[in-house]
């Protein structure tokens, strides 16, 4: 297990290094001078040269790469041209909102999709299964932004219960300083008005974000459960007189959960990417909103920072799921050790 972890961590470091270099290359090979782009067409040549020097754009590429990588190692992503604050500070300020949304979404996905998938498998080929199949299909094929707008329209305008934008009502005075997650900080501070309001704000965006993954994971859970149901150990446990509920929920699900967990891991990793759309629609003050804003302003340092942070998130989430799978299924550990 230790060697396995070590190997995975090493691969992780290599991938991260590759990612950083790749982003550097992309940022440098694009046509146009970042300093000129940032200052706009009205700037004078002196201003451009000054900013070029400040950004180190006149150094040789290897030197630039070195400055950039050593900065990264110390958590320095350069300065944002939009907010003229260090990019790292901006990201640190925006990240908790996104993390809260993403975590809430993944919890929603797990608690909805796996039970429904098990249900579809238990009642396979009945009307329950058919209804669930349609639900999962709708989830998979509905584009996130279309769903987001529909939810806003129906749940917010017509029913009026859920707020349409933002993270917290303007009237509530609260700053989340401990973890930055409103639900947790609100609970810690005993402010339940904050917790309920934050949860109401979270609800619609997280459904919009969760739908695709829920559909996918439901399908995969169903397939895996049906496959496991034909194994001998299931018949044997039944013969021992173990209650059906225990056989299904404990024995079968443990074996069958490998496939859905893998997909959930991938899903989790891509959530930050998909959050771009959902945050945009719901004016959620997270890293994706920051990303879209800086992209539109061609704020290159900030864009690199956002892409890098979401890349790191992606890679770490994959590693986490890999470790979890190793715990659940020892064979996976062995395979991963031998693989490529």
């Amino acid at each position, binding site marked *: 297990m230790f060697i396995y972890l070590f190997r995975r961590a090493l691969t992780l470091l*290599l*991938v991260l290094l*590759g*990612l950083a270099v*790749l982003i550097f290359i*992309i*940022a440098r090979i*694009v*046509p*146009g001078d970042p300093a000129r*782009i940032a200052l706009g067409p009205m700037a004078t040549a002196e201003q451009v040269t000054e900013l070029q020097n400040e950004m180190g754009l006149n150094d040789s590429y290897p030197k630039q790469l070195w400055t950039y990588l050593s900065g990264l190692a110390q958590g320095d992503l350069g300065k944002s041209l939009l907010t003229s604050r260090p990019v790292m500070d901006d990201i640190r300020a925006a990240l908790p909102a996104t993390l809260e949304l993403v975590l809430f979404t993944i919890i929603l996905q797990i608690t909805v999709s796996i039970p429904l998938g098990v249900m579809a498998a238990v009642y396979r080929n009945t009307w329950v299964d058919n209804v669930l199949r349609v639900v999962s*299909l709708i989830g*998979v*094929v*509905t*584009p*996130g*932004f*279309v769903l987001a*707008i*529909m939810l*806003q*329209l129906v749940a917010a*305008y*017509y029913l009026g219960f859920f707020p349409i934008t933002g993270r917290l009502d303007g009237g509530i005075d609260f700053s989340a300083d401990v973890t930055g997650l409103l639900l947790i900080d609100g609970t810690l501070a005993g402010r339940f008005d904050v917790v309920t309001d934050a949860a109401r704000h979270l609800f619609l965006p997280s459904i919009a974000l969760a739908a695709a993954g829920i559909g996918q994971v439901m399908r995969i859970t169903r397939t895996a459960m049906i496959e496991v149901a034909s194994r001998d150990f299931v018949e044997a446990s039944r013969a021992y007189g173990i209650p059906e509920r225990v056989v299904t929920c404990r024995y079968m699900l443990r074996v069958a959960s490998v496939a859905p967990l893998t997909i959930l891991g991938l899903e989790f990793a*891509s959530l*930050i*990417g*998909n959050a*771009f*759309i959902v945050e*945009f*629609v719901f004016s959620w003050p997270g890293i994706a909103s920051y*990303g*879209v804003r800086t*992209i*539109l302003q*061609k704020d*290159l340092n900030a*864009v*690199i920072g*956002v*892409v890098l942070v*979401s*890349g790191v*998130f*992606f*890679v770490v989430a*994959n590693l986490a799921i890999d470790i979890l799978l190793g715990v659940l299924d020892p064979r996976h550990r062995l395979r991963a050790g031998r693989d*490529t």
Partner: protein
Amino acid sequence: MSVIDDHETPDHGMTARQMAFFRFRRNPLAVIGALIVLSVVIMAVFAPWIAPSPESAGSFVNFRNRHAPPSWDNLMGTDNVGRDVFSRVIYGYRVSLGLVVGVLGVAVPFGVILGLVAGYFGGWTETIVMRFTDIMLALPPLAMALAITAVLSPNLVNAMIAITLLWWTWHTRLIYRIVKGQMNEDYVEAARVAGASHMHILFRELLPNCISAVAVKVSLDAGFVILFGASLSFLGLGIQPPTPDLGTMVATGSEYLPEMWWQAIMPGLAILYAILGFNLLGDGLRDMLDVEL
């Protein structure tokens, strides 16, 4: 190269192809998917003849008829300058399918060849190609595409470039895995012993065994490329007006919610319809050709 005789399957008296088609027809969802895809393709190709108001595709303005709700004259209503939304949706399919063809036409052959080469040659070729693929897969796709289109200035061609740069990886991975599995098969060994060249083994022996997997993947991909392109446009970083694009239409229309709901919802449903079609078709093909992705 298959072992089963292609012309006779004793129990049913059908050829393998007929069997596959039979399985496909028996699957109602797959047939629906195929019909949806067909309808989208027909609308895209024959847009000028099908659209009730072809001039709506451009920057046509008819203020007298703006914000008209769905009716017999305007099936999906009209938008903020009085253009027929239904006509714009039909032309929007043209743009979406163009994007699909452009992206997959480059990304799939590229990804497939890399996968074949990495799986077949092994060694350092494999290490370099697959590690590079891993890194590309670690990039958050949407954020990357956003960054690329933003820096290159947003338009249809740049959106296409951005999506293509990220898309080939999935095909490389898929083909690599299949080829790895095939390398120990007798037919590869036989071809090698018979003195076949690398090119022959790669493209005449291994590639045909990957084709059905690629077909399924391409069908599923088509829907996702449409989604991806629409998402970019929705954020204002893809196709620019007045070109009718479904994502842009949703974004513009959403400014008129909730009263003029059709302006955002109708193009949204049109995107959903196309993605649904490609998804059902892909699933049907997967069952029919019996491939695992």
